[in-house]
């Protein structure tokens, strides 16, 4: 595999791992949710890079599913966990 793709994927994975700290630290729930949102995008990028690097087209389908469902958790959070009727 070309060095470019693997190194780039490694950088993105490190970004995810660093972002985990934000989830652990909080302070509010929305901050954690944002970090999860960033992971989704990083995951898409990693999959696309690996798909090119390994010459494996299936990974693009996985990236597509990732991109489709990226909003689901955040929408559930904004509408259900935090949103809805104010108390």
């Amino acid at each position, binding site marked *: 595999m070309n060095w470019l793709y693997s190194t780039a994927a*490694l950088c993105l994975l*490190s970004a995810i791992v660093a972002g985990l700290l934000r989830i652990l630290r909080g302070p509010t729930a929305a901050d954690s949710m944002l970090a999860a949102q960033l992971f*989704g995008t990083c995951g898409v990028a990693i999959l696309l890079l690996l798909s090119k690097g390994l010459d494996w087209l*299936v990974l693009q389908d996985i990236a597509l599913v990732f991109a489709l*469902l990226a909003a*689901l958790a955040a929408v559930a959070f904004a509408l259900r966990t935090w949103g809805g009727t104010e108390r």
Partner: protein
Amino acid sequence: MTDAMGIFDIMLALVLPWLGWRLLASPNLFRAVVLFISLGLLMSLAWVRLHAPDVALAEAAIGAGLTGALFLSALRRLERLRDSERRLDYAEKREEEQNLPPEKRRKSKPVAYVLALFLLSVFLLLLGGALLKTPVAPGRLGPAVAGQMGQSGVQSRVTAVLLNFRGYDTLLEVMVLFLAALGVWSLTRVRQTPQEKVPGPVLATLVRLLVPLMITVAGYLVWIGSSRAGGAFQGGAVLAAAGVLLLLANVTVVRQIPSTLLRWALVLGPLLFLLSAVACMSIGGNLLEYPRQSAGSWILLIESATAVSIGVTLAALYAGGRPHEPAAREAIVDKSADTKVKNGEGA
């Protein structure tokens, strides 16, 4: 350069357990759920690294998407229930205390805990030993499956195993899903949310854009499943995501779906699967032994029906109860009054 991928693997393999540990140790339930969503995402990357694209697809749809929505909504429901009662009692205090750092925690039965830890580690050592002793023969059943591919009617090996060679497993699995939906429906009704605010323009646009795309991608996944990664499970999961999005946005169309239609959609997949299993027997083969020439079409038919049912089932599981029927409203009011009286007595 493969070195970078080696580091990638090491990092991923170490982060997964660490994440699991932090998830369970986290004092905040919400944070634990978000960590669990991230775990699903990373698991999906791990499946890719382990050359399991089918599993990665399913995990991407379910682990990173659906489970998150499921837990987040349940969390909301639990919190709302607790807030309505406004009592933080002994048991919950104990739970909170347990979440404090160890030095502040009240020491409770250290002997029992040490014993449990000891037994757990012995068990794990045995398990790990067994794992190491397991003979590693790559592709144990791989060649056997590859040899029979010509008869399966599909090109994807995982799909061939799922729907042809071990079709009865999948049949039973579809039944399990159906039973789960049945269980949830017999336990509760969907909470009648008072018509909340109209979904804002952003949400409405999102739904309008994403739902048709999700349905298209679900169809694509079912279709492509015969030749490479994809299939009924992944397609069904993406379909379920569309349903969850519609439920979240509280679109009126969803509430107006007649419950008979829903029931038929739930049954469609299992019923068709069962019928074709029996039909195979009546043609002259064994259970789920499709005729050689048309095996591909049989599989595609079963897969499409199953995908629809899985989608509806998962969305129904997310909704968390059977849909309302107008005639049943009074009964609920009575029941909630009942429980209130009971709670009052208990307190």
